[in-house]
Structures are given as C-alpha cells and as structure tokens.
C-alpha cells in the first residue's frame, strides 16, 4: 500500500447523545497507522465536539475531548471548522480547543491545527478528497 490518499473525516454530530463522534475518533486514531493524508472537518453540531471546557460528570459518560489534543501526535495537522456552523451556534474559534501540531518542516515549531473555512471552501475540500468518511 504505497499510494497515499487524501482522507477527510467529516464530523457532523454533537459529541454526546449518540456514539458517532467517539467512534469516529477511534477510526481516526487507528487510521493514523496507515500513513495517509488525513484531514478532519467539523460541521453542524459536530463543532461542539471540539469545544473547550467539556464536562460530562453529570452524564456518566467518558469525556473524550482531551483525545482531540493528542491528534497532533498522530500526525493529524489539518482540522477544518465550518464558519457557518460556528456562526449559527453563536460560537467563535475562541470557544474551541487549542489544537496544535509540530511542523517538522519548520524546526518542529508549534502551529495551530484548526482552520475556520466557509461552507464553499469545505465543499471544495470534500471534492478534492479521495475518501470522505462521514460520521
């Protein structure tokens, strides 16, 4: 398997209430071993998955949001968040986790993984991806 494809994981749902968000993250973590070109996108209620300050103590469900901060170590460097979805929910990038990666081409400088994009830009990203895994 020498050929590298562009994988886009499209996360559309709130982090809790259904298992899709968590089981999507499990695919991303396992998939990292395959050394493909990976991007994540968060749209609709999916933007809540990467909000700061999540507290699930009242739910009896594991708070898995710290796992997103480990994505940089899994070589996941491109995380797109749809602006329209943030706007519709009264959120800004300041409300989101501070996700970083180390750029090996720039003396391991720490850089922001999150990029806010418009719906139009996201559509283009989806179009350019070889594989879109939708959760």
């Amino acid at each position, binding site marked *: 398997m020498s050929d590298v494809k562009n994988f886009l994981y499209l996360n559309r749902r709130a982090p809790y209430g259904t*298992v899709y968000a968590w*089981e999507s993250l499990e695919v991303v973590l*396992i998939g990292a071993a395959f050394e493909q070109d990976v991007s994540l996108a968060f749209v609709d209620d999916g933007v809540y998955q990467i909000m700061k300050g999540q507290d699930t103590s009242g739910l009896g469900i594991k708070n898995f949001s710290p796992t997103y901060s480990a994505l940089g170590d899994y070589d996941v460097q491109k995380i797109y968040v749809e602006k329209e979805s943030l706007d519709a929910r009264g959120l800004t990038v300041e409300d989101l986790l501070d996700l970083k990666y180390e750029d090996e081409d720039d003396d391991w400088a720490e850089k922001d993984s999150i990029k806010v994009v418009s719906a139009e830009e996201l559509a283009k990203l989806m179009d350019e991806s070889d594989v879109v*895994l939708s959760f």
Partner: protein
Amino acid sequence: MKYVIQVNEGPYNHEASTSALNFVRAALDAGHEVFRVFFYHDGVNNGTRYTTPPQDDLNIVNTWSELASKHELDLVVCVAAAQRRGIVDEGEQSRNGKDGNNIAPGFRISGLGQLIEGCVQADRLMVFGD
C-alpha cells in the same frame, strides 16, 4: 469500479442496511467489484444469526449471508463496535469468556484497519447511514 461499503446502522431501525444491500446487488450486477463491506456503529447488528424477524419480513441478516456466499463477499464487523454491542464469534467468545457466540455465516470480526485498508484499496467508499 472497485467499491468498499460502510454500513453504520442496524438492520431494522434504519433503512441503511437494506439500501446497502440493494446497492451491492446493483453494483455486482453491473459488473463492479465490491472489495469489502464494513459494518460499524450499530451496523454490527447486521451480523448476528439470532435475528428472527416475522416470516413476512425480510431477513436482512440472512440476505447478507446469502449474498456473501454467492459472490464471495468479505463482510467485516468492527471488533470494537461489536464488543460494545454483544456481537461475538468463536475467537471473541473464548477471549472474553462468553457462554456462546452469535456471528452469522459469511461475516467475520476484525479491526478498524480493515475499513481504512478498504478505503486505500478501493476506488470509492460508499457510506450507508444517517
């Protein structure tokens, strides 16, 4: 075209599995290849042979098994999702000390890597679910 199929919903709560069946049949009839069908989330519930719908209802599990036998399809149930939902083969039964197993003929339990590998190998991924 070489397809890999992902089924994310169980057999009866949602139409996803039936739609996937119809798609796989149509793709094979049209001469395409189905590299693998990967069952994830509640989709793993398509792989239990204990499913017993009323006689006038389509037995979706048996339909998958028959299709797999006829076309040598690779039906893979995600192990992590299966463990959460009680889908067990002989290996899982012995590993986890269970008193039985329920995997349907033609299905096998394996890891998420099988989905990623399918995406790498196939020309196109088709996802069936919400």
